[in-house]
């Protein structure tokens, strides 16, 4: 909220600078975000000297002036022919600036003459009500200076962030009341109890039909008003608070809203049929055209102010177009009410409208301030139009406000705060908040009607702490029960996975959880694939961030794309994060791991060894991960994922369950993502790995240094090319041979002189006995059996 310091000063004896006031408010919980001067925000309005006045013959009612601010020369057209003469120093608004009455100053061309900027009147400059002449300075005035510096006009305004619980601070008067509470500075209490004028009787009828929506409704009738422009002081304060003027009546209601925080509404009396005002629920399908010209269809839960025929106003939110005050209005009805904050808020949300008025009603207005605001508005109108007739105030208040009675005792205060604050201090604070009854150590407080944020003992404790000063409160360490919890296993596991991948040269990325639906569609998934069944946001920021991801792939591909367009072609990245599937209860969220490798395998450049990544780079990472985690991940060739090349991919299994996939992405899909080959990806469901991981950590076989030497024998043989290595491994594993420690693949060769469709494969068999040094003949015997078995099984021939 904007708080002009000069307006504050009307109600309180300000004993410090704007900066210090800002600090006081901030430390009391009302953060001052900025101190600024609205005049300085108008742009460059400076003093210039008129160098020359020209009267070209083809220009009739204007003349052309050459002026300078000391740096540049501007030509300006002006109609104030009889006021300008060379040598004069005048106020000049440069192009791009704005006048007090919201006119944007631009460069114009009239009959081929360019006019840059404009002379301004004292009114246009916002310094007085004078409109009929230019703002002229004495000839010795310094040129090129801000006119506000020259006139010593300073209007500091505080931009204060008011928390939603403190509706009472959404006004100038409210802020002064708060400043008084914190500092004790003298408050000039606003009191308008006695109106010294003859009142006519109220000519109409008011009925609150919806007492849940409207707690209090007061109003009065005024006859003989003349609608026109507001006086300068009203215009200036609206300007300081960033509001545009409409007409004197509406401006005064807005003025009172800013000053006292109570929204008012002015009706054209003649538009209220039968002089009958009904506060009721809207009828089904009832329509209303609002002040901003928008027609809305009302909801039965909306509260409206209606006459006997139709809704005139969306109560507390916005007036209707037809019943508003216009130029020709002579009789008005002024409304001041207290509406149910919840109803106003829900109604505003339903129609997506927030106004200065609804904002305040939602945050609770002071129920006891309703008539005061009416009187204040009357006072301001009377000052302009002393001869109008004013009715009595009609005040419908079926259920007068009852402040809550809050019980609190010293023990509770000390228990929450954690230290003992002197009784006198506590007393002095509590007495500033409402009516206090005190018995021994127990207090009973009925807060002032404007402090509707106070309803619980804890609220009072905060007030005590706040008035004492948060910085004064001691800092202590809790006296707490000793216990400690073991870190959760999934978090430990995730950390381990990240550590391993980092050691393999991968960088962790974090991508948005919402993605472009098109990026999933681009994956060529089977129409029944679960990943196409995405959770959609109803109010996304944009289409490209509109569905919850069901796979980490799109995010990783997007990151790869971002990198490749910014000089990074070789990338190894991963992400650990959630994917989301629809479920009965909220959603099914699963923690996944995604991997992406792209570009070349870069070796030392001076060796000239650089080669494109291939499948075995990805496979190696997964195998090494599997070893590092002691999880026997199984890579089954030929993934079912339609976005992977079937011949260059795997499905990943653990203990017979599919837990992920890995492989080369199809080129056509990569190109859709504006990326290029080679590009490999993998994705694993981490949640299913956690339990097997911890199980595996318990079963560690400890190997010792060998006591007896090992020995090896090689077999090199030729077999059909299409026999997979995996089959050979499996065959050897099933042999269950004594002393065989391991088998290494040492060479693989195809080409001359090996016949077409065949390959030469060399295997090295390592033998060792635990209890003796193997003799040659022992080894030979076993090894011959193996060789024979291998040759027979695979129809291989020794080479």
């Amino acid at each position: 909220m904007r708080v002009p310091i000069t307006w504050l000063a009307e109600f309180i004896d300000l004993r410090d600078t704007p900066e210090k006031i800002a600090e006081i408010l901030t430390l009391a919980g009302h953060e001052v975000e900025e101190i600024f001067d609205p005049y300085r925000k108008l742009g460059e309005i400076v003093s210039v000297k008129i160098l020359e006045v020209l009267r070209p013959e083809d220009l009739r009612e204007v003349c052309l002036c050459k002026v300078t601010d000391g740096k540049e020369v501007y030509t300006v057209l002006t109609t104030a022919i009889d006021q300008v003469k060379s040598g004069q120093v005048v106020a000049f608004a440069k192009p791009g600036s704005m006048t007090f009455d919201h006119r944007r100053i631009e460069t114009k061309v009239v009959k081929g003459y360019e006019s840059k900027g404009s002379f301004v009147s004292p009114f246009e400059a916002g310094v007085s009500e004078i409109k009929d002449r230019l703002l002229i300075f004495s000839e010795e005035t310094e040129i090129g200076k801000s006119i506000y510096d020259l006139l010593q006009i300073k209007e500091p305004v505080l931009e204060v962030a008011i928390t939603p619980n403190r509706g009472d601070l959404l006004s100038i008067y409210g802020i002064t009341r708060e400043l008084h509470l914190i500092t004790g500075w003298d408050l000039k209490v606003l009191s308008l109890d006695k109106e010294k004028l003859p009142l006519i009787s109220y000519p109409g009828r008011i009925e609150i039909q919806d007492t849940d929506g409207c707690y209090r409704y007061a109003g009065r009738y005024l006859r003989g008003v003349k609608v026109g422009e507001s006086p300068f002081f009203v215009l200036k304060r609206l300007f300081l608070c960033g509001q545009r003027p409409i007409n004197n009546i509406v401006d005064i209601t807005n003025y009172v809203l800013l000053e006292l925080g109570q929204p008012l509404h002015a009706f054209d009396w003649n538009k209220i049929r039968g002089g009958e005002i009904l506060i009721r629920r809207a009828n089904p399908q009832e329509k209303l055209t609002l002040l901003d010209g928008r027609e809305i269809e009302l909801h039965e839960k909306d509260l409206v102010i209606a006459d006997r025929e139709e809704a005139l106003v969306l109560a507390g939110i916005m007036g209707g177009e037809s019943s508003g005050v216009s130029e020709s209005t002579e009789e008005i009805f002024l409304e001041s009410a207290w509406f149910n904050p919840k109803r106003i808020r829900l109604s505003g949300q339903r129609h997506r409208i927030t106004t200065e008025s609804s904002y305040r009603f939602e945050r609770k207005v002071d129920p006891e301030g309703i008539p005061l605001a009416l009187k204040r508005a009357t006072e301001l109108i009377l000052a302009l139009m002393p001869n109008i007739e004013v009715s009595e105030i009609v005040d419908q208040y079926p259920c007068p406000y009852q402040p809550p009675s809050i019980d609190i005792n010293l023990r509770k205060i000390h228990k929450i705060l954690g230290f003992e604050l002197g009784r006198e201090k506590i007393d002095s604070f509590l007495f500033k908040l409402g009516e206090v009854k005190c018995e021994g150590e127990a207090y009973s407080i009925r807060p002032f009607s404007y402090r509707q944020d106070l309803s619980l003992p804890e609220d009072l404790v905060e007030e005590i702490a706040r008035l004492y000063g948060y910085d004064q409160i001691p800092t202590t360490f809790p006296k707490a029960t000793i216990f400690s919890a073991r870190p959760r296993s999934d978090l430990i596991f995730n950390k381990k996975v990240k550590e391993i991948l980092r050691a393999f040269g991968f960088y962790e990325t974090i991508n948005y959880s919402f993605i472009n639906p098109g990026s999933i569609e681009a994956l060529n998934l089977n129409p029944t694939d679960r990943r196409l069944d995405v959770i959609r946001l109803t109010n996304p920021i944009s289409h490209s961030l509109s569905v919850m991801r069901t796979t980490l792939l799109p995010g990783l591909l997007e990151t790869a794309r971002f990198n490749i367009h910014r000089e990074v072609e070789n990338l190894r990245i991963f992400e650990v994060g959630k994917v989301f599937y629809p479920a009965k209860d909220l959603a099914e969220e699963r923690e996944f791991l995604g991997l992406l490798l792209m570009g070349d395998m870069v070796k030392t450049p001076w060796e000239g060894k650089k080669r494109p990544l291939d499948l075995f780079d990805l496979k190696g990472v997964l195998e090494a991960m599997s070893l590092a985690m002691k999880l026997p991940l199984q890579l089954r060739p030929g993934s079912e994922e339609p976005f992977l090349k079937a011949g260059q991919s795997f499905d990943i299994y653990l203990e017979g369950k599919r837990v992920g996939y890995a492989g080369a992405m199809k080129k056509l899909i990569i190109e859709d993502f504006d990326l290029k080959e080679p590009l490999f990806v993998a994705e694993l469901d981490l949640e299913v790995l956690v339990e097997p991981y911890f199980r595996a950590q318990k079963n560690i076989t400890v190997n010792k240094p060998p006591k007896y030497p090992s020995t090896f024998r090689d077999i090199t043989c030729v077999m059909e090319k299409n026999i997979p290595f995996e089959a050979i491994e499996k065959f050897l594993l099933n042999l269950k041979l004594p002393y065989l420690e391991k088998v290494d693949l040492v060479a693989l060769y195809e080409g001359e002189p090996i016949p077409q469709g065949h390959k030469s494969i060399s295997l090295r068999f390592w033998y060792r006995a635990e209890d003796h040094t193997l003799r040659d003949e022992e080894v030979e015997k076993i090894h011959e059996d193996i060789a024979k078995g291998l040759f027979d099984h695979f129809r291989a021939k020794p080479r």
Partner: protein
Amino acid sequence: MKIEEIQRIKDEALRELRALRSLSDLENFKVKFLGKKGSITQALREIKGLPLEERKKTGAELNQLRQYLEDELESKKRELLFLEEDKPLDIDITLPGRRPLYGGVHPLAKVIDELCEVFTPLGFEVVTGPEIESEYYNFTALNIPEWHPARDMQATFYLQSGALLRTHTSPIQIRAMLARKPPLRIIAPGKVYRCDADVRHSPMFHQVEGLMVDREVSFSDLKGVLSYFAREVFGEGTRLRFRPSYFPFTEPSLEMDIGCVICGGEGCRVCSNTGWIEILGAGMVHPEVLRAVNYDPEQWQGFAFGLGVERIAMLKYGIDDIRLFFENHLYFLESFK
């Protein structure tokens, strides 16, 4: 052979020994003096003609010399072999080495770990919660009913199912309290979502939530724990400021500022010329929240706090654009290792 002759050989050998510079010198020397036809070998052969006494004496002397030279040669040879190994290779060793790859964790993950590590030694348990939440956990149970203006503070993404993306990590408080019996201490990091995006806001960001409930935990204790935290994260000399604030789920509430780390309190763009930077919001758990999880507010009280991870990371590393975290450019990621 005369004594003088032997003396001459001796002198010559010792002189040449000193002059040895290379392994080939060494070989030549060996041949010249100690080889089959070497002068010492020759001399040993020639002394046979000398009288016994003299033969004995000269023979001993020559053998001694031979032994001496052999020993010297051996050590000289080692010396030269060492020198040999010091010779530069025919390669520029200032060329880059073969580096094993080493990646990095994301800076936000790193900061989250650091934040959690401040609290785990105090017995806080790290917990997480769902990112897709219900109105109840995200708002209602936290004392933010549907009509509450505080909902304006958090622009919410809704899903077609009526669920929403959690706007803060506070719903984890509710879930943790329901799943446990007091006393409890938790620290809960995670992703949160709000529908705004610009240089300072990202529609997805991270928070860390803390909660402690016990019999006697007070507002002063909250200040103590937060001060400890700020100094652990930002350094011993960090200036702190506590301001009243408002959150529907805490009462009393506060916000903590630290002295601006960019300008040192002088005033700059980052701290909007105030010299202070807001770091977190906190407060005593609201009695309505305790009631929502069936904790008796007369028996249990506690505090909760929530902080923005991106903000802390930006301050710690001097990052001025929040989007950098989610673009994941390699150069950026490499900065953190």
